[in-house]
């Protein structure tokens, strides 16, 4: 008979921290962590000691004091009597605005260029290679300055629009392209429901969201019908109606009118102003990052086995539908992860805004506020915190999206 013996009860000995492979890695990780904490503590204490020697101390009280300077582009109410904190928020919103615009346009541009680079048309694919190589190999700061300088030098000054026979005229009498920026008509709600114009716009936004879900439901209904009968009902005019009828009704009720820009005094007044600095920064970030995204898209598409497109072709799909229905959905799982870092790059590169005088957060908090108050450490800490938060948020959102499109392995 064989007897089962219990393995001897192992007791933990200190030497196992080094000798036992189960614990050794923890030991080293702990030592590394300790060293890191010590290093940071040393640097921090050094900073505080130096500050104390110079008779300075960290204080965030300056954020509550009047800023004293004006900002040309502000998405919220702001005057020179507002606080430094409000100036910071104005800067944050400007950063987010340009980052959002640049992310959207860089994606559109990058996907188009990436797909076209694989085109069978020799001219188109070579043109796209030229675009990618030219733009990703020159620093983005140079592109920002080039676009800004060209705008300033080539476009007419508002002065040129003056007089009986002006050197420059407005496009269709509605749009003015000047070297200070582009002036476009602004929509005005003459009779907004619930009092304020902001509420009116919110209502319209809600209407659009409703239309979106309406259109989606219609699509689902059509698909279900197709499953049942094999024939997809024609729905495009319903879709159009769902999108536009509520919008037009809402706008008519609230009395939409257009504020058309016109020369007033030194400058164009009225309408919406898209400043040259915003345009330069936005375009430069979009075309520069678009070139990188184009390469991501190309890599993603080329990662899909050729058999996939051949199989799709043998089913009788046209090349455009092969790309949209078969290739791109599979390529997305390769494209999305590097796309996240491109979005992060856009957000961080937007801090080059000061080169063209665009008042982003680096321009307000990290620029004028820092200068006028001399609170460099506080301002830079806040800046770091802001960029870190935004970057982590973008990562989180994009990772959720990535999870939803990645290959579902069963």
């Amino acid at each position: 008979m064989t007897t089962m013996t219990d393995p001897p009860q192992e007791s933990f000995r200190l030497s196992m921290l080094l000798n036992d492979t189960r614990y050794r890695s923890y030991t080293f990780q702990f030592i590394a962590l300790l060293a890191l904490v010590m290093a940071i503590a040393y640097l921090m204490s050094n900073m505080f000691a130096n500050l104390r020697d110079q008779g300075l101390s960290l204080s965030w009280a300056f954020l509550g004091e009047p800023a004293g300077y004006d900002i040309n582009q502000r998405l919220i109410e702001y005057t020179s009597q507002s606080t430094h904190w409000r100036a910071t928020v104005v800067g944050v919103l400007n950063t987010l605005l340009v980052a959002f615009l640049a992310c959207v346009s860089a994606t559109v541009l990058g996907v188009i260029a990436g797909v076209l680079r694989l085109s069978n048309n020799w001219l188109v694919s070579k043109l796209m290679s030229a675009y990618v190589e030219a733009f990703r190999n020159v620093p983005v700061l140079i592109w920002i300055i080039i676009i800004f300088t060209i705008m300033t030098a080539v476009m007419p000054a508002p002065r040129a629009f003056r007089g009986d026979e002006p050197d420059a005229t407005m496009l269709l009498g509605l749009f003015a392209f000047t070297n200070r920026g582009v002036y476009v008509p602004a929509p005005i709600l003459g009779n907004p429901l619930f009092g304020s114009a902001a509420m009116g716009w919110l209502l319209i936004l809600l209407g659009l969201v409703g239309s979106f879900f309406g259109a989606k439901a219609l699509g689902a209904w059509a698909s279900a019908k197709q499953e049942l009968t094999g024939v997809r009902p024609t729905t495009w005019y319903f879709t159009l109606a769902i999108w536009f009828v509520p919008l037009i009704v809402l706008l008519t009720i609230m009395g939409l009118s257009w504020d058309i820009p016109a020369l007033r005094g030194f400058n164009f007044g009225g309408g919406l102003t898209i400043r040259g600095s915003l345009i330069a920064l936005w375009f430069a970030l979009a075309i520069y990052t678009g070139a990188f995204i184009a390469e991501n898209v190309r890599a993603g598409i080329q990662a899909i086995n050729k058999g996939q497109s051949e199989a799709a072709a043998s089913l009788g799909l046209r090349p455009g539908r092969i790309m949209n229905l078969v290739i791109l959905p599979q390529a997305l799982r390769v494209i999305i992860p590097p796309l996240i870092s491109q979005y992060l790059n856009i957000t961080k590169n937007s801090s080059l805004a000061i080169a063209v005088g665009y008042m982003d957060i680096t321009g307000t908090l990290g620029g004028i506020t820092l200068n006028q108050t001399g609170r460099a450490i506080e301002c830079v800490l806040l800046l770091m915190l802001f960029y870190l938060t935004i970057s982590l948020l973008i990562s989180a959102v994009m990772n959720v999206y990535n999870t939803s499109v990645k290959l579902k392995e069963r």
Partner: protein
Amino acid sequence: MADNQEEVKMKKTVLFGALTAAGLAAGAAAAGTLDDVKARGTLNCGVATGLVGFATPDANGEWQGFDVAVCRAVAAAVLGDATAVEFVPTTGKTRFTALASGEIDMLARNTTWTFSRDVDLKFTFVGVNYYDGQGFMVPKDLGVSSAKELDGATVCIQTGTTTELNLADFFRINGISYEPVPIETNAEAQQQYLAGACDVYTTDASGLAATRAAFEAPNDHVLLPEIISKEPLGPLVRHGDNEWGDVVRWTLNALISAEELGITSANISEMSAGTNNPEINRILGTEGTLGEMLGLDADWAAKAITAGGNYGEIFEKNIGESTPIGLARGLNAQWTDGGLLYSPPFR
């Protein structure tokens, strides 16, 4: 905000505790700039990145200008060599950090002496070498004759300076609107202004004159009569090193006194032999021990004056009416001529 401060204080206590426990000492030598400069053999002087007349490298790469001359005078007084200066170009944004961190020993970069810079940023302004005020420049064909007619104008400003605060105040007080276009450097501002991207360029009147002098057609642009601020520009050093502050202060005063007393670069060797004016003798070191009190050679002031001449000579050579910049002495005349330059006595 009080909560924040409390928090910071707490963190500090913890960190200081850690500091003591670890026995780490953070060394930051506050005093002894004079000894540092002597030991190094060169003076690190912060200047503008390029403003014609005030600080700009010439065709040979030699720094020239009104502010540069102050650096050279200090180097001559301390080291006996007006060329022993390491010029560090600073922008409106980087200048204070450069000085506070010790990267430069002194800053001579048309910097306005203000309360908060003196008290809050912990700098010592040793005097005023140019009394300035903020002005406006507009193209002549705009037909503007007063800054009060600038309602709705687009204004180019150099960011990070007192000018953007003055500008905001001026337009606010007069109840007129404007659109600021912040610009990083003078050169860019010039380009934007000339392209018509802004109607007005504003900065210190001396800077406007210097900028206009570099235009192709200076006469197409006018300076408006309004001066909207007081801008006493002067060299500054860090708080807490009074010996070094004294050296820079009295070097500047020596240049001003030299003009008042008629000491010029032409007659200084003759006067150094001794004159019957005791104050001249004390400045030039043939009488008394003023140099020794500063920790310098007896002929420190003589060397400083020899470097570029007295205040008046420096002014005429760099920014005076015979130069393209063409600034009149105005407020910067000696007090005996109705100006504001008034050096305390050397005794």
